[in-house]
């Protein structure tokens, strides 16, 4: 599903973010990406949803080489990938329902399907009764659940989360993790960059540790491995 071969990434400002990454992630896997700040986790994630292209090496998503993917076809790759961020990235003037529907409107889904799918994912993240609320009227955990709902509403094959619990207290973080578990159980590939020792250690999933742009550890039922 996701294949990287000897991937290097050097930004135009001279910073080397990745220095030879080779990795294979299969369909349906749940993977934590850990490592110190600035180690290259975010770049690793951006390569997957083709926000960045590798400087050298190969990144293949579903057998598509992202370096060879034409600019105009990038949107179609993105439709197979849902992305969740630390800061939620919700539109403040739209209701919960509208924020989620937005993701389907802009890929020109039919109004009937939109209604059906939005209600389904609202049910999944347990926010059906808050569909008409604005993001500002929700707690942080609820806002993150809305952003997860938006990421999965078009049934992507891969969900990427870049420190999704970074802004949340521990209890709320577990709420979010339960949602991710459920998404993963439905066969979606989950990749999550995190700094949360508690979450990684308790969940016992595959852990990829990145330091200074290379993979220093890749364990199938790993631990967080850092002190904080």
């Amino acid at each position, binding site marked *: 599903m996701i294949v990287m071969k000897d991937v290097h990434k050097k930004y135009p400002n001279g910073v080397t973010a990745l220095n030879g990454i080779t990795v294979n992630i299969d369909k349906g896997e749940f993977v934590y990406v850990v490592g110190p700040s600035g180690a290259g986790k975010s770049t690793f994630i951006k390569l997957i*949803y083709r926000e960045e292209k590798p400087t050298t090496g190969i990144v293949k998503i579903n057998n598509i080489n992202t370096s060879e993917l034409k*600019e*105009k076809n990038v*949107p*179609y*790759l*993105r*439709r197979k990938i*849902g*992305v969740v961020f630390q800061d939620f*990235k919700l*539109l403040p003037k739209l209701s919960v329902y509208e924020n989620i529907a*937005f*993701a389907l*409107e*802009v*890929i*020109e889904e*039919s*109004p009937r399907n939109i209604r059906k799918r939005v209600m389904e994912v609202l049910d999944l993240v347990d926010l059906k009764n808050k569909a008409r609320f604005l993001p500002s009227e929700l707690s942080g955990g609820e806002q993150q659940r809305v952003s997860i709902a*938006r990421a999965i509403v*078009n049934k992507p094959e891969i969900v990427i989360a870049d420190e999704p619990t970074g802004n949340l207290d521990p209890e709320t973080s577990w709420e979010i993790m339960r949602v991710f578990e459920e998404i993963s159980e439905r066969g979606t590939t989950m990749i999550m960059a995190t700094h949360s020792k508690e979450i990684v250690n308790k969940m016992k999933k595959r852990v990829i540790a990145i330091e200074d742009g290379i993979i220093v550890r890749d364990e199938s039922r790993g631990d967080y491995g850092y002190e904080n």
Partner: protein
Amino acid sequence: MAMKISTLKRHFREGIKNIFRNGWMTVASIGSVTVTLLLVAAFLTIILNLNHMAQNVEDDVIVKVLIDVTADDNEVKELGESIKQLDKVDSVVFSSKDDELENLVDSMGEEGQSWELFEQDNPLNHAYIIKAKEPADTVEIAENIRTYDHIHKVTYGKEVVNQLFEFNENARIVGIVLIIGLVFTAIFLISNTIKLTIMARSTEIGIMKLVGATNGFIRWPFFIEGMLLGIIGSILPIAFLLIGYYYLVEKIVINVQIPFFELLPFYPFAWQISLVIFAIGALIGIWGSVMSVRKFLRV
């Protein structure tokens, strides 16, 4: 590329929302389109009417060469031949003094009857009636022929022709320069307004890209915003044109009696110009949005 109706509706809805988002910049860009199009409308109306009048005059612009009475038949014929040889001459028609008298009598109507007395002793000259290939060359041809032998007199609508052509030419140059300047100002203002929209919506655009909206989909609302700014800017000029021209034609000019001074009829002229103004407005708007979308929307 077929677009769903629901998608098109969405683009229009977003485009209209954008218009209200930018407040004063929207007012400024619509205002500049309005000023530009008012001038375009006035200019087009004047130029096309001048052309129309010039056409009327031109159709009447002939050089009339009155031949000296002392010239014999051969000399008259030779003169005709040499005029025909001039490059810029289109046609040369001989009109004998009897023809001339007949024309005169006809043109005077009732009063002309008395002139028929002269039929036995015609005081008029033989004449050549000359038409230029290009009406603008009329003067040159006339002055040229004046130097020939056996010429009694060369006449043409000298003053009218000269002034009309000169004015027309000047008006055209001034008008075009002015309008090009204004069109660019309007495009600049519109593209700036849309730049503001793009910046105001950058988060939204980022999310759209993230969830896989195509670049075309992201751009559309901005094209529509630009187009609407241009079209709204064309409303006032069109209203002014229709009302103003109606009064000009129906209330004012109808009472003015100057030869050749005849305006194009309100229908269809005013409507045709309105359509042109509308189209120019829309084009200015689309152009402005294309410019800022290309520059500021890296999608």
